[in-house]
C-alpha cells in the first residue's frame, strides 16, 4: 500500500499536493471570511469566478488523460461538459417548479412554447440523486457508444478530431432547436436554489466553490491513480506506438474506450459544478471553439503531466478574464498567438519549460528526474503519420 502511494507521487509530491489542496479547500474560504479591510481577503465576487476556473481545471485534467496520455485529441469534450451542465440545469429547473415567471409547474420556456406536458426525458430530474446519476451516466454512455464505434474502426489522429468536432457541432445544432426540449437558444437559466439553499447567497456560492475544489482534488487523485497504474502505462504505450502495443497482446480499443469514457464523465462532473456557479447553460457551451480552447489549456500547461493542464487552465482563464475586460480587441490576438507559439516553441508546455530549467540546474546524472518522461510531442505523432498518406 505504502509502496503504491509512493509510486503515486514522491514524498515531496504528496506534500505539495497536500499544501495545494489545503490552500484551495481551506485557505481560500478562510480568506473569504476575513473582513474586506484585510489586505489578503478574497472578495465575494471572486469566489464563483475561482469556482469556475476549478471546473475548467477538472476538464483540463480529463482532457489530458485522453490527449496527453493516450494521444487522442478530442475536439468534442465541450459536448460532455455541456451535457453534464444540462443535467444539473434540468434538476435546478425542476426544483424551482411553480416559482418561475409563469408560476407554472413546467419550466418557463415550456410554458412559453405552450407545452402542456413535461417531455419524458425530464421525468425524475427533480430528485437530486437521480439527476446526478443521469448527468454522469448519459454523457458516459454517449462516450462509450461513440468511442466503441470510433476506436473499433481504428479512427485516429486528425480523423478522430474532426469526427468528434462534427459530433459536437451536430449536438449544438440539435440543442439550439426549441423542439429538442432544452430551452433552445436561451438554454436553461434563472435558477433559484440548489438543495434548498438560495443560489444567490454568498454561503451557497462558497459551498459550491469548496465542492469544486474537492472535486478537483479527487479528480486529480483518480487520474493520477489511473496514469501510474499498469493501465496507465498501456495507455502511454498506445500513444507512442499503438500497433506495437496491439502486437504485445493488449486490445488497444478497450483501453481507449475506457479512458475516453472516464474522461467524458469527468467533464460532465465539471459541467455540473459549473452551471450553478455561472447560473446558465446554453448550447453555445458546445461550440467548436470551446473544445479547441480546452486543448490549448492542456498544451500550454504541458501534456502528459496532469498538473500542467490544470495550471494551463487557470493561467489562460485568468488571462482571459483580465484581458477581455482590459483589452477586448487584443484577447483574440493573444489567444491566437498562444496557439501558434506554444505549438511551435513549447511542445511540452510551461511545465516542460520549468522542469527543463530545473534539470539544467541540477544536472546530476544519477538522480532520477521526473522530466525523463518521453515528450508526447515527438512520440505522439508517430502512429498518426500512417493515417495520412504520405
Amino acid at each position, binding site marked *: 500500500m505504502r509502496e503504491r502511494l509512493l509510486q503515486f507521487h514522491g514524498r515531496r509530491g504528496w506534500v505539495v499536493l497536500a499544501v495545494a489542496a489545503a490552500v484551495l479547500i481551506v485557505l481560500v474560504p478562510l480568506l473569504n471570511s476575513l473582513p474586506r479591510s484585510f489586505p489578503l481577503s478574497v472578495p465575494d465576487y471572486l469566489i464563483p469566478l475561482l469556482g469556475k476556473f476549478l471546473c475548467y481545471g477538472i476538464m483540463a485534467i480529463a482532457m489530458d488523460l485522453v490527449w496527453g496520455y493516450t494521444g487522442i*485529441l478530442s475536439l468534442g469534450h465541450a459536448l460532455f461538459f455541456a451535457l453534464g451542465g444540462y443535467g444539473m440545469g434540468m434538476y435546478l429547473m425542476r426544483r424551482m417548479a411553480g416559482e418561475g415567471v409563469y408560476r407554472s409547474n413546467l419550466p418557463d420556456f415550456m410554458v412559453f412554447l405552450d407545452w402542456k406536458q413535461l417531455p419524458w426525458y425530464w421525468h425524475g430530474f427533480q430528485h437530486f440523486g437521480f439527476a446526478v446519476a443521469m448527468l454522469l451516466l448519459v454523457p458516459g454512455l454517449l462516450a462509450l457508444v461513440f468511442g466503441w*464505434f*470510433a476506436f473499433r*474502426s*481504428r*479512427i485516429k*489522429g*486528425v*480523423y478522430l*478530431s*474532426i*469526427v468528434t*468536432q*462534427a*459530433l459536437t*457541432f*451536430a449536438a449544438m*445544432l*440539435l440543442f*439550439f*432547436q426549441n423542439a429538442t426540449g432544452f430551452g433552445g437558444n436561451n438554454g436553461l437559466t434563472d435558477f433559484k436554489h440548489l438543495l434548498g439553499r438560495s443560489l444567490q447567497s454568498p454561503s451557497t456560492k462558497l459551498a459550491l466553490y469548496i465542492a469544486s475544489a474537492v472535486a478537483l482534488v479527487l479528480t486529480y487523485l483518480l487520474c493520477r491513480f489511473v496514469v501510474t497504474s499498469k493501465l496507465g502505462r498501456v495507455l502511454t504505450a498506445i500513444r507512442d506506438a499503438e*500497433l506495437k502495443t496491439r502486437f504485445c497482446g493488449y486490445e488497444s480499443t478497450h483501453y481507449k474506450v475506457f479512458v475516453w469514457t472516464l474522461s467524458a464523465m469527468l467533464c460532465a462532473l465539471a459541467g455540473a459544478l459549473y452551471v450553478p456557479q455561472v447560473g446558465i447553460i446554453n448550447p453555445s457551451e458546445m461550440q*467548436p471553439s470551446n473544445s*479547441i480552447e480546452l*486543448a*490549448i489549456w492542456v*498544451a500550454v500547461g504541458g501534456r502528459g503531466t496532469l498538473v500542467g493542464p490544470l495550471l494551463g487552465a487557470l493561467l489562460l482563464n485568468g488571462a482571459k478574464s483580465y484581458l477581455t475586460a482590459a483589452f477586448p*480587441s487584443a484577447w*483574440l*490576438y493573444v*489567444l*491566437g*498567438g*498562444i*496557439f*501558434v507559439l*506554444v*505549438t*511551435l516553441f513549447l*511542445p511540452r508546455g510551461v511545465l516542460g519549460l520549468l522542469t527543463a530549467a530545473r534539470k539544467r540546474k541540477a544536472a546530476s546524472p544519477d538522480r532520477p528526474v521526473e522530466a525523463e518522461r518521453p515528450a508526447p*510531442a515527438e512520440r*505522439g*505523432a508517430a502512429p*498518426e*503519420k*500512417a*493515417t*495520412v*498518406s*504520405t
Partner: protein
Amino acid sequence: MRFAPAPTASRRFATALSALAALVFLTGGGAGRPAFADTLDDAINGLASSSGEKISASVKQLATLDDPRAIPALDALCDDRLRAGADGRAWIFDSHTHDLKDPLTGAPAPAGARPAKEVELDNDIRRDAQPVLAQLQLASPDKAVRLAAAEELSKAGSDDAAVMLHKAYDKEKDRGVHDALALAVARLDIQSKDAAARLAAVQLLHKSGNDAMLGELQRLLSVGADGQPQEPDAQVRAEAKEALNAVMSRRRMITAVGSVIYGVSLASVLLFAALGLAITFGLLGVINMAHGEMLMLGAYATYAVQTFFQNHLAGAFQYYLVAAVPVAFLVTFAVGVVLERLVIRHLYNRPLETLLATWGISLILIQTVRLIFGAQNVAVANPDWLAGGVELAHGLVLPYNRIGVVVFVVAVSAAVWVLLYRTRLGLNVRAITQNRNMAACVGIPTKRLDAWMFGLGSGIAGLGGVALSQLGNVGPELGQSYIIDSFMVVVLGGVGRLAGAIVSALGLGVINKLIEPAAGAVMGKIVVLGFIILFIQRRPQGLFAIKGRSEA
C-alpha cells in the same frame, strides 16, 4: 399597377364593361377606322374638361379608338394626376418633380399651360374609366402591362370580363402572357354556371399545371354539407381530379428541382473550400483550420475591390468582379505561402499540433479583419449581369448568381485538374503525395512545392470567397460556418483525391438541401453529419481511397 377597382364596385364595373363591350362591338372596335392622331388628341384633352359629361364621352371615345397610346392619360385620370392646363389641354402632373407633361409625347408643358387645375372627377366616371384602361392595357405593346391587366380583370370576376379576356387570349402571341391569360380565363370560367365552360377551364388548368388555382380544384372535388359533391357534373369532377394530380405532381417536381439547384450551388461553395483542403491535406497532411478564413479573406478582397471601383472607377463598376478574381486569388495565395513558411513548415508530421496552430492563426485573421473592416457584415453587390434570374417554370427561378457560381467552380476545378494531371508541376506534386522521400530522392524540390501548394490551396479558397460574396453578406466569421462542412467533404471523399472531393461535395450539398424541406434545415444538417460519422466507421479511407503501399 395602379388600376384597382374597389371590391364593392365590381358589379357595377361589370355592367359598365358589358356596355363598353357592346359599344366596342357596335362601332367595329375602332380597328377598321383609321385612328387619327387629332381624334386621339381631342379625346385626351376632353378628359381634362370641366364638365363630367364631356369627360364620360371622351372616355367612351377612347374605348372606341382602342389606342394604347391613351394609357398614360387614362391612368393619370384614374389616379388624380391629370390636370387641365390654362391652354385648355390635358397634362399629366408629376407629383415628385411637380412638372407637367404631355400625355402623348411625355414632353414638358410650355409656360402657357400653367396654372393648371385638377380635373374634377366623380366616382361614376372613375368606374367607367377603369375598365377602359384595362381594355387598352390588354392591347398594350408592353408585356408587363398586359399581364397586369389580365390579372386585374380576372380578379374582377364577371362573365363580361371573361368575354374580353377570351378575346385577348385568342389574339395573344407571347407565350408568357398567353399562359397568364389562360389562367385568368380559367379562374373566371371555373365559377361559371355552364358545365362546358367549367370543363374547359379545368382542362386549361390541367394543361398549364399552374398551382395558383389549387384551392379551386380542391373545392370542386370536395363534398358539401349536404353530402353532395360541390361539382354536380361528373365529367368535370373526373377532369378536375386529373388536373389536381397533374398540378400536385408538377409542384413536387418544382420543389425537387429547386432543392437540387440550391444543393448544387451550396455544393459549389463547399467544393471551393474542399478543393483547397484536398490539396493541403492530401499533399502536406496538414489540417488547416484557418482554411475557412481564406474563404473569408477572398470575400473581403472582393469587397475591397468593389469599394475601390465605386470610389475610383465608377464607370467600369459592372466589371469589378473580373478584377476581384485575380486580386482575391493573389491575396489568399500570398497569405497561404507566408503561413506555410512561418508556421506550418515547422509542424509537418505533427498533425494534431498543426490543427491547434492553424486554429490560432484563424483567430488572428478573424480579429484582424474585424479591426480593419469592422465587426458588422458588409454587403457585396451583384453586378447587373449577375442580378436576376431565368424563370424555368412558374414558381421556379434560377438566379444568375447561382448559375455563375456553378460555372465558376466548374472552371476552377477544371483548371486545378489540368494543373495537377497535365503539367510537370502537377506530376511532381502527385509524386510527393504518394511518396515524399522518394520524390525528394529523384530531385523534386519538395520544400518549395509544399509552400506553393499551400498557397494554391488557400488561393482556391480565396476564389471560393469571391463566389460566396455573390451569394450573401460577408462577415468576419464567414469561414467558420464552412470549415466543418468542408472537412466533412474531404474526409468523405478520401484524402488527396480531386474526384472524391467533387463527388462528395456535390453529394453532401444536394442531400443537405433535399432533406431540408422534409426535416428542416437543422435536422438536415444533423442527419448528414450523423450519416458521415457512420460512413467513416465503415470506410475510414473515404469514398475514393488512394491505392498505394503507404497506407497503414
